[in-house]
């Protein structure tokens, strides 16, 4: 993308009445292949490329985008954004303002140890197929009825220029794998889908240990379908949660409610509100063992970036510290409302999308317990290792996680497996009941949903094993 042209259209926006203007060139080029029951279904290329313009005029926000990148059309797009912002300003009681920030000027790219373009795409298909085929699917009476694996690598390239002097160029390559396994034995059936994702090059596929991960998931299905018993009745007991479930709950029950635009109601009709509308910074929501951080700067992470899509330098953000609510996730608009600085949480999915407040890599910080130590102090309890069903209300207060693979614990020993154990719990009870946190921080890839039009975005979610004291399971 020609930096001069982007600069000129920002200048044109200012001369047309904008008090702030931002132009973002944004492309994502992807390669994807699909394997169904060990046969290659096909392959596809995707190429999304365009420019977005965002402007403030008289306190109204306007956004327009186009995939036709020539100066004449870009000028037209600026005019549309200006017109949209003017229209927007007329209904506002208070003008939108942006927090003052030091504009970043940086050019960076994530290094690929083995570049994505270093081998032909058909070789990637062969490599994936070899891994996928090597997994033993049928176990005992359990038969796998459907086994789908997709692989995608993509390169996201951005150039962001704003009227305050920011100039940010970035290139971020990603590799992701998604799969679903369906299996049955007798009248029992179960699914397991899973997603793995990182930034980096083809070395990522090797580092994913894909064979072992899929193999372990097939084993979880076998346990769920063939071995597991129902929990006889609901009762209160200790629960040890795996990093996979802690990671998800961290994203859902701590990350989303910390989004300042959600607190302000900007997403009220879509993804909902937040308990942090009422519970302010300083409120004790959990035990001293709970510290939760969102950090876009973790090398290799799926939600990696160094500067956000408003040109603000990224840093780790502590959302909960020792059980106490701390900072929210901000972009410049919400930071201005709260009278703070942006903490660089503005992300846009592609050139068609406005930057809004998003998570990056959100995790519960590890402490000092081994897994065995967490279990050995449990007289009677549950170990939940993997989930399938989950959801949370639009205040992020009442959540539900259902175990695909779970076990009964008796006198500090893991006993027989349990089928579809349910943990349905409020956020406060969940974080307050954590009495021990493991040291084994593990990250999981996810695609976070938010925005209108929807903007699915890559994130990591992380956590170690934790132990909940005396909570209800059913």
């Amino acid at each position, binding site marked *: 993308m020609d930096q001069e042209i982007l600069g000129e259209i920002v200048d044109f926006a200012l001369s047309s009445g904008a008090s702030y203007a931002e132009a973002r060139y944004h492309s994502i080029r992807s390669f994807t292949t699909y394997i*169904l*029951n060990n*046969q*290659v*279904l*096909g*392959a*596809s*290329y995707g*190429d999304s*490329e*365009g420019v977005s313009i965002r402007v403030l005029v008289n306190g*109204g*926000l*306007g*956004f327009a*985008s*186009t*995939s*036709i*990148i020539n100066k004449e059309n870009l000028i037209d797009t600026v005019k*549309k954004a200006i017109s*949209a912002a003017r229209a*927007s300003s007329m*209904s*506002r009681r208070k003008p939108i303002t942006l927090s003052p920030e030091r504009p970043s000027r940086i050019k960076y790219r994530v290094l690929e140890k083995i570049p994505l373009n270093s081998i032909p*795409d*058909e070789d990637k*298909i062969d490599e994936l197929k070899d891994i996928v085929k090597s997994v033993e699917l049928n176990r005992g009476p359990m038969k796998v*009825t459907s086994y*789908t694996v997709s692989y995608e690598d993509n390169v996201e390239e951005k150039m962001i220029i704003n009227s305050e002097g920011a100039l940010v160029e970035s290139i971020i390559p990603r590799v992701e794998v998604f799969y*679903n396994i*369906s299996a049955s034995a007798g009248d029992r*059936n*179960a*699914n397991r889908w899973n997603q793995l994702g990182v930034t980096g090059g083809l070395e990522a596929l090797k580092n994913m240990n894909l064979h072992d991960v899929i193999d372990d998931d097939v084993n979880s299905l076998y346990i769920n379908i063939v071995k597991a018993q129902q929990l006889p009745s609901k009762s209160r007991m200790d629960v040890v949660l795996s990093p996979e479930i802690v990671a998800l709950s961290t994203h859902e029950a701590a990350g989303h409610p910390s989004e300042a635009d959600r607190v302000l109601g*900007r*997403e*009220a*009709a879509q993804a*909902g509100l937040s308990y942090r509308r009422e519970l302010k910074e300083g409120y004790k929501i959990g035990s001293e063992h709970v510290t939760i951080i969102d950090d876009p700067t973790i090398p290799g992470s799926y939600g990696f970036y160094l500067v956000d899509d408003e040109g603000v330098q990224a840093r780790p953000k502590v959302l909960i510290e020792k059980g106490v609510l701390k900072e929210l996730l901000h972009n410049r608009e919400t930071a201005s409302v709260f009278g703070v600085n942006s903490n660089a949480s503005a992300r846009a999915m592609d050139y*068609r999308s*406005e930057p809004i407040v998003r998570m990056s890599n959100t995790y519960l910080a590890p402490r000092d317990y081994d897994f065995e130590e967490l279990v050995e102090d449990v007289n009677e309890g549950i170990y939940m290792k993997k989930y*399938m*069903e989950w*959801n*949370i*209300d639009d205040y992020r*207060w*009442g959540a*539900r996680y259902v175990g*695909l693979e779970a076990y009964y614990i008796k006198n500090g020993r893991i006993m027989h497996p349990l089928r*579809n154990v349910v943990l*349905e*719990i*409020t956020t406060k*009870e969940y974080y307050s009941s954590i009495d021990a946190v493991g040291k084994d921080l593990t990250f999981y890839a996810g695609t976070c949903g938010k925005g*209108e*039009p929807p903007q699915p975005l890559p994130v990591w979610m992380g956590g170690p094993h934790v132990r909940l004291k005396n909570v*209800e399971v059913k």
Partner: protein
Amino acid sequence: MSLVDDIVKSVRDKVDEYLVSVRESKKFMVKLSNSEVTVVQSWIEYDVSLYITKNERIAVTSYTSRDPREAIAKTATLIDKLEKSPLYAKLPEPNGETLNYMDEDIIDIIENGDIENVIGGLELNNYQGLSGAIDLTAWKSTLKGSNGAEFNQMGTSFNGYVRIFRGEVSGQWAWTSTSYDLNMAKRAIQVAFELADECSKLPMEKVDPGRYRVLLSPMVVANLISHVVASASAGSVILGFSFLHGYKPGDSVASHVLTLRDAPRDRSMPDFSGHDDEGIITRDKAIIENGVFKGFLHNTKTARLMKEETTGNAGWILPRPFNVLVEPGSLKPSEMLEALGDGLYITNNWYTRFQNYLEGRFSSVTRDALFIVKNGRATACSSRVRISDLMPNLLYAIEDLGSEVWPIQWWEVETPSKVPFMLVSELGITRPEI
């Protein structure tokens, strides 16, 4: 030479079969929160897709730029290196039609960025906390294929949703159409306001976990039925995401009062089309009729695998629904709470997730007003419980349906849907105990 012809020329000698699709859309969206405009967005989009086969191998490419040469060249090279696809089927003889529906008012509003005609008449200041989004789209599509398919369609849409708060409680409603009719937006605002207002005047009570008679609003019905329709796609069966996987046409799958249709010919609904993505003519069809399963949605690929006929529901790789219709029943609006008697009236939900797609075990969280009804009267309001059950249980427990269908499309209902209220004799409800 047109963009489509340009693509055809660059690919036709390199492959056995091709389909080219170009969709040009102009969109205008107003987002609202706290009864103010938060952002106005405007898009001009070109979405170009190319499907090619060679020696029964399949490759697809999609791009947004108007210069597809590099992407096409890469795809045409890659296809020689692929394997025969287990999904491959020869492209069918096209017999589709062109359907158009253009509303000039929508085109004018988009062209002029005319926000006054979008929100001017909605009296936003009369509402304390109104949030939502209003979307207007005008589109043109072209499909051209080596099988002789050549169709040009045009359409418009006007849809949106609003959520209104009264203190701590709220109501939400949506609409969708191919015509600009501000009365639809006004009606949605009115319904959302009334739900919030009525809830705010009632005492708040907790709902104990258990099994309840429930009345589901069209917002809830559209969301839950979308998962039934997804399960009826043969693609979901093949990929292991369908609780209908063991059924065949003629099997009973639901209460006799349920008739569920895919309605591509309904030009009042935004996803109408006279042809599918392979050029086959679309037809309105029952998926479930009077409780009896009528068949899966197919393209030629899934039809070949499952030894059935295409139903004119092709996406290029897997089948898809167009518009969803649930036939109305006998319940008049004034009779619904009385018919419910004792139970819960659930007005909205979100976050429907499956523990087990094959068995249909799911849960979904209610949001906005939830009414506790006793003797046909709402006596208290509640919120944020969880519907937790099996899809087959829900379908068999449908007791009656409302006499009016509502056009619904919003953040949690992607496919345009016309659905009525639904009275369900028994449904599992859970929530955190503390």
